[in-house]
């Protein structure tokens, strides 16, 4: 997102904070054939993030040696991080079986998020809700499938809505709440949490960057320069912070995915 592009929507004389328009990207070739209209900056970045994830895994894991060298060391650290921080704490001894899914998901989302601080690209693609929805639905479908497969259709709902060991009248309140939170809200919160964090982070970065650009380049005044410098410093600080948030959100998304898979595999205790 370049500053001129940001400011193109402004009236010209007054500073205008960037809004939703920074998330709207048309086809890269608007004049091209209509079957190419899906090719936008976000989809290109998704493809790039996927490519990075694949190349990373390829360089690290293809032909892995007993004694690791080079990229395999990095790949093993990454693998062990996901395994020991996500898979095993959440899934226990089933954890290793789910590592292919969890590893792919974590690093795909991580690279997608980090695209938000890569110069020139500057777009955490999960700020487009379509992508978090794809991941959340995949996890949701898996959760339902595993739940019905491992606990039975009736057993799954019974375990979910009527966890044992509670006084009977409580179930009147608990059962609908559990049903609502597990079946309806889960995919929604799962995807929106990721989307909203990336959306807000990107908006924040764009705001500080455009403040700096506006007050230091476009309309440099003695009074405005201070504001511009604050914007500049905050852009750097927030970029570092966003790096952290983007990694954290990828981690939380994967952690919840593992937790939902676990809830399908075994009834909650």
């Amino acid at each position, binding site marked *: 997102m370049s500053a001129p592009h940001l400011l193109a929507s402004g009236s010209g004389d007054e500073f205008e904070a960037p809004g939703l328009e920074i998330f709207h990207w*048309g086809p890269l070739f608007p004049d091209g054939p209509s079957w190419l209209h*899906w090719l936008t900056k976000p*989809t290109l970045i998704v493809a790039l993030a996927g490519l990075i994830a694949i190349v990373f895994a390829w360089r690290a894991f*293809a032909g892995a*040696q007993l004694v690791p060298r080079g990229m395999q060391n990095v790949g093993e650290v990454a693998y062990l991080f996901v395994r020991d921080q996500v898979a095993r704490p959440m899934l226990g001894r089933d954890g290793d079986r789910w*590592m*292919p*899914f969890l590893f792919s998901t974590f690093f795909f989302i991580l690279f997608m998020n980090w695209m938000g601080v890569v110069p020139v690209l500057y777009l955490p693609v999960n700020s487009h*809700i*379509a992508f978090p929805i794809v991941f959340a639905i995949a996890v949701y479908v898996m959760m339902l499938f595993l739940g019905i497969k491992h606990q039975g259709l009736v057993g799954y709902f019974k375990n979910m809505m009527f966890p044992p060991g509670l006084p009977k009248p409580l179930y009147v309140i608990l059962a609908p709440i559990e049903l609502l939170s597990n079946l309806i809200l889960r995919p929604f919160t799962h995807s929106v949490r990721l989307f909203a964090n990336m959306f807000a982070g990107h908006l924040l970065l764009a705001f500080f960057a455009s403040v700096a650009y506006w007050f230091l380049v476009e309309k440099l005044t003695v009074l405005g320069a201070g504001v511009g410098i604050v914007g500049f410093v905050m852009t750097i600080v927030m970029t570092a912070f966003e790096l952290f948030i983007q990694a954290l959100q990828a981690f939380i998304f994967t952690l919840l995915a593992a937790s939902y898979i676990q809830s399908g595999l075994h009834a909650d205790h």
Partner: protein
Amino acid sequence: MILASENPLVPEASELIFGTVAFLVVLILVGWKLVPQIQKTLAERTDAIEGGLKRAEEAQDEAKETLEQYRAQLAEARKEAARLREEAREEGAQIKAEITEQAQAEARRIVESAHAQIEADRQQALQSLRAEIGTLSVELAGRVVGESLEDSARQSRVVDRFLEELEGRASTREQITS
């Protein structure tokens, strides 16, 4: 610009489809193809390390066992050697005693046989002497009688001559025998 919706909470259909395809590609390549490789390698490494530790432990146990065996064998060998030494010493003492006894017996036998020889020689000498002494005495007496026994000087001359003859006879006999 073609915008599907101004609402950021409404997903765009093309992005849903593209996201699904991209996710599937990543899942297949990374999840299905590549992650199992590192899982296999990690499992193999664990095996190798555990196997190595186990092998080392086994080797150590074996070494300890062998050492014990060697020690036992060594102790046994020492005992055996001591026993053999003791036996040898006893045997040696016995042999020494036997040899001494034999030597003494031999010495006794030699001495006895020497005594017997001497005795026999003496007897033989006595016998031959006894046989000769008669003749000699007769001869001597004859001479003594034949010559007049005038003085003691002649007497002693006769005896001396006789004795010289005797000596000469004895030496010729010796020459013949030797």
